[in-house]
């Protein structure tokens, strides 16, 4: 029987992240799609299938929070785990308040990511 793996989408303009993170997520057992911008993600057919979104905050053009708002408007309630290289402690509570599952500061451990994903799937 074919195991239907949950789809986790990664949206990050940083190439290192787009290269490294999908491999790790696959190791966790997820299906993964990586996008270099929010716009690219929105244009893809993955929006409805994505069970969890790992989303960079600062990106040229549409930012992570922008995408979050856009999804809310579209009533696509995908659990979101924000990741950011900008360590701003004030950002995290605000994002969580607005519905994010977690906000991870780069660099983060695989354990922390795992826990965040667990939490995300609990929500969903």
């Amino acid at each position, binding site marked *: 029987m074919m195991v239907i793996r949950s789809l986790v989408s990664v949206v990050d303009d940083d190439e290192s992240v787009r*290269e*490294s993170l999908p491999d*790790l997520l696959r190791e966790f057992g997820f299906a993964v799609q990586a996008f270099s911008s929010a716009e690219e993600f929105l244009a893809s057919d993955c929006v409805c299938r994505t069970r969890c979104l790992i989303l960079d905050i600062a990106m040229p053009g549409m930012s992570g929070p922008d995408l979050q708002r856009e999804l809310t408007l579209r009533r696509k309630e995908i659990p979101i785990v924000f*990741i950011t290289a*900008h*360590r701003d402690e004030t950002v995290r509570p605000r994002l969580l308040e607005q519905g994010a599952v977690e906000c991870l500061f780069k660099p983060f451990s*695989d354990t922390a990511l795992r826990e965040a994903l667990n939490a995300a799937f609990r929500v969903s």
Partner: protein
Amino acid sequence: MESELRRVVDALPGLVWTARPDGHIDFLNQRWCEYTGLSVEQALGADEAYGQGWLTAIHREDLPELVERWRSILASGEPREMEVRLRRFDGEYRWFLFRACPLADASGQVVKWCGMSTDIEDRRRAEEALHAPWWLRSSAREHHFRSIGDSIPALGALMTPAGEVELVNRQVLEYFGATLEELKGRAISHSFHPDDRPDVLARWRESVETGHSYDFEARLRRADGVYRWFHTRGFPLRDTEGRIVLWYLLHTDVDDRKRAEALLAGEKRLLEMVASGHSMSGILEALCQLVESTASGCYCSVVLVDPSGTHLEHGAAPSLPASFITAIIGRPVNVDSGPCAMASYLNEQVIAADLTSETRWAAYAWCPMALAHGLRACWSTPISSTAGKVLGAFALYYDEPRTPTLLEQSLIEQFTHIASIAVERVQNDAALKRSEAFFAEAQHLSRTGSFSWRVATDEITWSEQLYRIYELDPAVPLTSELIHSRIHPEDLPFICEMADRARGGDVVDFGYEHRLQMPDRSVKYLDMVARATRDPDGRLEYIGAVQDVTERRLSEEALGKVRSELAHVARVTSLGALTASIAHEVNQPLSGIITNAGTCLRMLAADPPNIDGARETARRTIRDGNRASDVITRLRALFSKKDATIESVDLNEATREVIALSLSELQRSRVILRAELADDLPPVTGDRVQLQQVILNLLRNASDAMSGVDDRPRQLVIRTGRDEGERVRLTVQDSGVGLEPQGADKLFEAFYTTKSSGMGIGLSVSRSIIESHHGRIWAAPNDGPGATFSFSIPRAPKSVTDTHGLGVIRMPVTAARRVMRSR
């Protein structure tokens, strides 16, 4: 017979004589001998002189003529006569008529000369008396004197030897208004001015006693009581005996000359007072006194128009009562307040001949006031400057009604002219002194001295301030050696070379900075400019100014240091602001590393281990590690404080690095950056880190300018390219709020900021850096929204100094400011 004849001859009523044909006297009668007191022997003479002894009795003056005539008589053989003076026994000479007749024999040959001399003294006297000058004949005196004396243009008088009046000409009678008898009846001194009487009498008496001619000047009282100056000369006239028979006196009227002389002397004295810088009141007072002594019977005053031209000020009025002056001073300059005010106002002479019938100035009741002071006439004349401006008025007052005569008018004109010279000169002097004081003060305040240098004579003239700057004593003569002793040894060769070139005349304008070294080893910085001129004789002269810029220079140095510090502060400030960006930049690769490492471990721990996957993730780990290392290297370069290092810089590469460092921050600010870097950009010489600092500043500045912009893309374009004149240009164009017009030229000043946060030092520091690269930096509004900041630097400047280096910042600053203002 002979004795009979002799008796007859002796009895003749004359002196009888005979002579031989050759002229020798051979007989003289008794009377001849008695008259002359000579013996016959003496009269005849002996031996050689026989026949010539009688000549000793002839008057010496008549002798040559007698001898000559006697010779011609003898030659003529005709009877002749002549008149000679013959000495009497008592020594007195008397005139005699000598008659000689020839006595011829039958053949007509002269054998004898017979002669008779007759005393004609009395006849001669009578004749002489008849032909004598008129003055020797009292009866003729009056007639002659009238005909000559009345026709001469002077006062003439004949005086007796005792010095009394005998006759006078018509002019004397008219001048004194008296008859001859009246004049004879009064003492001579009575006609003279009381002040002159003692001298006149003494001199006249001396002349009368000694017979020396008389020559003196004194005032004679005219019939109307006016005294006029006369030059009197007196000559004694003597008879043949040398006795004074009368004095002839001639009085010549020299009054006009005397007055002119006095006036001239007075004018000279006044002008000397003006020239020697006497006070205005002193000069004007002397002027009034001179006027009063020249035109007797008047009171003189000078009033001045105050600097505002509206009121009268006191000038001088030594003989007028103070209450009168006080009543005039302060009156407004108009036609109503009084004659002087009117004359000043109209710039016309005002004559009030009789104040009792005067109707003008009633509004100010001027006439009653003047009349109350006993004044009856007033003539006021404006005093004008050479430029025609009315300086005041010159007034003459009289205590009787009067109209100026032509003479008085010309005097008034003369004195008004002198007054104008005095007032104008004093005012000009005051203005000059003020101007000199201003000049000296300005030199002092600006620490600027001036000098002139006559090249041919090496004559150097300094202003006071220049002595002060050099700290030299103005009393010590200036020499090149003295000046050179003050110049900083390092600058001396340069100064000497400059002076040599200037001496050659091939330098028109020159200016340089040099230093002085004072005896206490302190250093002064001087800024000198000079210009070559030619004096009227075509000789070369340099005129120049020297400014002590020590304080400015020291504060520039201090400012340079502060700038340098600020640059560091700015970097540190940027560091703080960029911490997040740095962390972001480092965290990205770190994140990759950790994720990859985690993945790698999981792949190896799988069963079976995913070796290929692990190898791939390990490779990516290494690559991300290198990325992080690169970031750190770049940061270390940017944030280390070190002095300027000069190297060849590829501006494109430097820009890319800055973009790499700023990119995340720009992204966070949602700025869309486009880089248009020219492919063929030549390298520049300069300090790479400093230039990057400028680029970073411009990028942050552009980003900040767009932080409030939400209605359009936050577009930022950075361009590099070649600029004209072997320069390279970098521009940063934003679409932000743009420039405030009034802030445009302040942008690059320290601590000027339009941002609520920020110290406003970024652009200021940027300018310092660019100027130290001999470049310029400016800002200009875009056609659309936003502004464009640019800098342009030479490809290879001759030298680049650190931002606090001397002499580099100054000029470019102003150049940069000029660029800023013109946009």
